C-alpha cells in the first residue's frame, strides 16, 4: 500500500489492516512521518517530530504482534499529541517560549495509556501559548495554517492537532478543550473533535490553563475514530482528584449504533441566529433537517443565561490561569532571564523571565485574572462568575429535561484570515461563544463537519449531552456523519484542496 493510501485511511481502518497483518506499524508510521516532512513546512502543525521514538514504538508493536501477542485494537496506529500534554523524554513547551527546551521527567496519564496501548507518538502539535486563543496565532513558535486555505487560521488553541489530522499528517491526535479548543479547530478544519465530560479523561500531566474547565479529548477525521481514541484515554485516574470514578460509557458501541429515531434533539435558541455567518446557519439547518429525516424529534430549547457565559468564562479562566501559570518563574525549569539593569534578585529575575517569556495574550489574561482575584474585586468578578456558572448549569438541566442532546453551530464563522482578529482580543474571544457553556457546566460536546459554507470552507456542527452521557454524542454524531457521507458521496474533508508537497 502506498504512503498516500495509508495516510488517507481512518484510524479504525488502519487498525484493521494492522491486525490482519496487511501492513506493519513501521510502514504506517513512516508514511505519516513522510507526510509530515512533505507538508508540515507549509502547515506547521508540529512543534516537534519524534521520528526515532515513533518508529521504535512501531517496531516494538510489529515484533509483539509477530509473536501472536494480543495487542490493543489501536496498537501501531500513530498519533499526534498537543504540546500542552507532558511527554517524558520529549520536549513539551505549551507553545510558550518560557518552556522552550523543557523535557518533562514524567508522562501524563493519558500518554501512559497511549504508550500502554502501543500508539506511536509522531510528535507534539502547535497551539496558542498555554492554550490561550482561538487561532493558534498566539503560539510562541509561529502560527499553524489551515490546510483548506493556508492564509487562514486552523482554529485554536488546538490548531496544530486539528490541522495535523486534516492534512493527513496523523490519523488521530490529542487535543485539550478549555472553552472550545478541541471543537472550534475541528469545526474550521472539517475534522471531528470531542470534549468529554469534565473528569472523563485524566488531567494529570496536562499543563493546566483553567483547572475547572480543562479537559483532554480525541481529534480525528471520523466519529468512530474519536470513539476508539476516547476509549483508550478515558476512565478513572487516582492521580486526578476530579477524575470521575465511574467507568466510561460504551462510546464505540454508540458510534456504531446508527439510529436516532425518537431521540429528542434540542436546538439552542441562544446559539443560532444573528452573529452567526449565514453560510454557517444554512449548513447547520440542513444538518438538523437530516437528523429529523433520520427520525429524531427536533425541539426548541432556550438557555437565557448563556448570554453571560462568555463574560463568566473570561473571568474564571484568567483567574485560574493567573495562579496556574505562576510556577513559570525561571527558578526550577524553563527560561531564566536576568533584568537588564539593577540588582539580580529572585524577585526581579522572576519578573524579567515572565516579562520576556510570556506572549501578549498570556500577559493579558494573567493580568486580567490577577486583577479579578485581587483584594476588593473578588466578589464582583470571580465570585459572580462562579454564580453565573450555577445559572448555566440550571439552564442545561432544564434543556436536558426537554431534549436528549442539544445542538448548535460550533463556531459563529468559518476559518478567518490570519491576522484578521489579532488586534481585537474581544472579537477573538467571540469565536468561543457556542463552545464555552459546555466547559462551564462540565458537560461533553462534539464537533463534526456538517458541510461547507458558501465560502467553500467547512462548518462545524456541535452536539452537547448531559454529564456522563458522552455516548449520546457518538450516537447522534455517527448517524449525522453517515447521512452526510451519503448526501455528499464522501466525507466533507475530501473537498479540501490538495496540499502542495514542499519538503520542510
Amino acid at each position, binding site marked *: 500500500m502506498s504512503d498516500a493510501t495509508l495516510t488517507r485511511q481512518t484510524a479504525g481502518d488502519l487498525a484493521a489492516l494492522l491486525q490482519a497483518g496487511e501492513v506493519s506499524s513501521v510502514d504506517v508510521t513512516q508514511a505519516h512521518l513522510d507526510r509530515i516532512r512533505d507538508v508540515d513546512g507549509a502547515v506547521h502543525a508540529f512543534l516537534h517530530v519524534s521520528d526515532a521514538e515513533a518508529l521504535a514504538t512501531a517496531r516494538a508493536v510489529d515484533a509483539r504482534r509477530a509473536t501472536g501477542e494480543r495487542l490493543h485494537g489501536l496498537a501501531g496506529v500513530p498519533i499526534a499529541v498537543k504540546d500542552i*500534554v*507532558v511527554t517524558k523524554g520529549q520536549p*513539551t513547551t*505549551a507553545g510558550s517560549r518560557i*518552556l522552550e527546551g*523543557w523535557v*518533562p*521527567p*514524567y508522562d*501524563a496519564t493519558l500518554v501512559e495509556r497511549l504508550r500502554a496501548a502501543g500508539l506511536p507518538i509522531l510528535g507534539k502539535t502547535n497551539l496558542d501559548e498555554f492554550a490561550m486563543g482561538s487561532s493558534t496565532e498566539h503560539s510562541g513558535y509561529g502560527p499553524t495554517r489551515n490546510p483548506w486555505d493556508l492564509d487562514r487560521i486552523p482554529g485554536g488553541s488546538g490548531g496544530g492537532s486539528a490541522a495535523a489530522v486534516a492534512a493527513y499528517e496523523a490519523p488521530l491526535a490529542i487535543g485539550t478543550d478549555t472553552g472550545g479548543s478541541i471543537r472550534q479547530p475541528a469545526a474550521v478544519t472539517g475534522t471531528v473533535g470531542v470534549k468529554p465530560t469534565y473528569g472523563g479523561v485524566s*488531567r*494529570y*500531566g*496536562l*499543563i*493546566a490553563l*483553567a*483547572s*475547572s474547565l480543562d479537559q483532554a479529548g480525541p481529534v480525528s477525521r471520523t466519529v468512530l475514530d474519536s470513539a476508539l481514541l476516547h476509549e483508550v484515554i478515558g476512565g478513572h485516574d*487516582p*492521580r*486526578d*482528584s*476530579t477524575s470521575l470514578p465511574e467507568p466510561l460509557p460504551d462510546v464505540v458501541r454508540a458510534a456504531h449504533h446508527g439510529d436516532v429515531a425518537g431521540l429528542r434533539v434540542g436546538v439552542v435558541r441562544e446559539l443560532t441566529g444573528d452573529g452567526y455567518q449565514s453560510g454557517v446557519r444554512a449548513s447547520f439547518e440542513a444538518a438538523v433537517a437530516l437528523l429529523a429525516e433520520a427520525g429524531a424529534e427536533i425541539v426548541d430549547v432556550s438557555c437565557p443565561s448563556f448570554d453571560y457565559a462568555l463574560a463568566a468564562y473570561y473571568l474564571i479562566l484568567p*483567574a*485560574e490561569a*493567573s*495562579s496556574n501559570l*505562576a*510556577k*513559570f*518563574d525561571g*527558578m*526550577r*525549569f524553563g527560561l531564566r532571564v536576568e533584568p537588564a539593569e539593577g540588582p539580580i534578585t*529572585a*524577585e526581579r529575575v*522572576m519578573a524579567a523571565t515572565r516579562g520576556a517569556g510570556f506572549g501578549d495574550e498570556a500577559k493579558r489574561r494573567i493580568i486580567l485574572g*490577577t486583577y479579578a*482575584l*485581587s*483584594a476588593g474585586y*473578588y466578589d464582583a468578578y*470571580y465570585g459572580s462568575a462562579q454564580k453565573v456558572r450555577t445559572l448555566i448549569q440550571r439552564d442545561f438541566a432544564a434543556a436536558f429535561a426537554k431534549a436528549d442532546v442539544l445542538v448548535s453551530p460550533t463556531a459563529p464563522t468559518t476559518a478567518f484570515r490570519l491576522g484578521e482578529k489579532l488586534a481585537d482580543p474581544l472579537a477573538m474571544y467571540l469565536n468561543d461563544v457556542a463552545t464555552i457553556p459546555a466547559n462551564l457546566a462540565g458537560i461533553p460536546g462534539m464537533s463534526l463537519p456538517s458541510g461547507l459554507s458558501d465560502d467553500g470552507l467547512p462548518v462545524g456542527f456541535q452536539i452537547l449531552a448531559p454529564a456522563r452521557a458522552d455516548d449520546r454524542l457518538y450516537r447522534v454524531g455517527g448517524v449525522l456523519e453517515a447521512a452526510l457521507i451519503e448526501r455528499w458521496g464522501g466525507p466533507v474533508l475530501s473537498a479540501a484542496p490538495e496540499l502542495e508537497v514542499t519538503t520542510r
Partner: protein
Amino acid sequence: MTATTHDLLGYEDAIARFDPVIGLEVHVELGTRSKMFCPSGTEFGAEPNSLVSPVSLGLPGALPVVNRTAVEYAIRIGLALDCQIAQTCRFARKNYFYPDVPKNFQTSQYDEPIAYDGHLDVELDDGDVFRVEIERAHMEEDAGKNTHVGGRTGRIHGAEYSLVDYNRAGIPLVEIVTRPVVGTGERAPEVARAYVQSLRELFRTLGVSEARMERGNVRADVNVSLRPSPEAPLGTRTETKNVNSFRSVERAVRYEIRRQATILASGGSILQETRHWHEDSGTTSPGRVKSDAEDYRYFPEPDLVPISPSREWVEEIRAGLPERPGARRRRLQEDWGFTDAEMRDAVNAGAAELIEATVAAGAPPAAARKWWLGELLRTANARGVDLGGLGVTPAQIGQLQVLVDSGRINDKLARQVLEGVLAGEGDPEAVVLSRGLEVVSDDAALLEAVDAALASQPDVAEKIRSGRIQAAGAIVGAVMKATRGQADAARVRELVLERVGA
C-alpha cells in the same frame, strides 16, 4: 534599626500602663509517611531533593491528591482541642511568589477550616489553669528550604544566591490559630510559652507528630498588641514570625510588650507589621515592607474537591483518642498522692512517663519520684541531657527500689548501685553482685566488728554502759565504716547495746 533592650521601658512599667493581648499561630508538621498531596517520603535529613515528585516540585501538569491520614490527624487535633469538625470544607490557593514555594501558591485551607471553635486549658508554672480559645485549626502544606550562600552574615540580606531543597515542600501542616488571648495581664509571656508547650505535649500524646522543636516540627507566630485598659478596644498588633523554642516564645512576647509600650508611652503608634525574631539579641525587627504582601488572591483550589468527613468517621476518630494530657496528669497525681508542686516538678522535668513506668515496675510512687527528681535529675543536669538520655530505664529503677525494700541493700548502697547502673555496668542486680554491695546481715560478722570497735573506744563503751545510749552512734559509725557501709545500721545499733548490756 534593631532596638536594644536597655532603651526600652521596663517590663513592670509596661504592664502597669498597658494591658497586653496576645495571639498565637502554631504550625505543626504532621508525622505522616508521605506528603500532603503526593506520595513523596517525609523523613528528616534526607539528601536534598531526594523526596520529590512532579507534584511537590510543582512541575507543569502535576495534580494534588489529599493524604487521608493527614486529614485524620487534623481531625484528631481538632477533637483534642474540643473543636467543631466541619461538615464540609475545602482547600484554597494562597498566591504569592517565593522560590521555596514551588507552585508560587500554597495550597491551604482559608475560609473553610476543618476544625473551629475550640479551646485548650493551659497549666501555668504555679498550677493555675488558663483557658486559651481556639479559633480554628486548618490544613496546609510546608514550603521547601532555602540555604543562603555568600554575603557577610549568611542571613538573607547580603546573600549572593540561595540553594533550594524541596524535600520539605508539601509536608502536611496543621495551623492552629487562637482567638485574641485576653486577661493574662503580666503573665502574657508565660501563657504564650505554656500554650505552645501544652500543644507540643498534645501533638505527641495524639501521635500526630514527633513535635521536635529543634527540627522545626513546631513553629509559632506570635501576635502582640497593647491597649490602655482591659475595657479598651484591641490595639494594633504585630506578628513576630517563626519563633521556634518555648523560651523564645516567652522572650518574644515580653520584648514586644516592652517595645510597643515604649512607643505608645511616648505618644507614638504601632505599625501593623510582620516582625522577625532574633534569638541572639532577644529582639524583633520589622520585616521588609511589601505593598502586595497581604494580597494573596485566595480562591478555592480547583484541582481538589471538598472534604466532607462523615460523622461516623469523626466519631470513630474521637473514640480512638488517647487520654488528653491534662486529664491524664490529674489522674496520675491522684493515683500517686503527689502534691500539686510535686506533680508540677515531675511534669516540668519530663519525668511523669518515667515515674509511671517505674511504678509499673514495682516501686512505690514516692520512691520513684525521689529517684527521678533527685539523684537522676542531678546527674542529667550535670551531663546536660534530659532524663530519657541518661540510659537508665524505669525498669532498672524499679528493680533498684525492690532491692531496697527487701532489705538487701540500704539507701547508701543503693546510691552506689545506681552509680554502677549509670556507668553502664548493667542492671542493679548485676551491679550488686559485681561490686559486692549486699548488706552484711550475718550477726557473727557484725559482732566481730562491734567488739573491735568497742575495744578500740573503751571510753565510749563506758559511756553507753552508764546509760548515755546516744553515745552508741559513734560505735555504729565505726562499724559502718569498717563494713564499708554494707551493714544494716539499725541492726548494728541493737548489737552494740546488747553487747554493752545497756
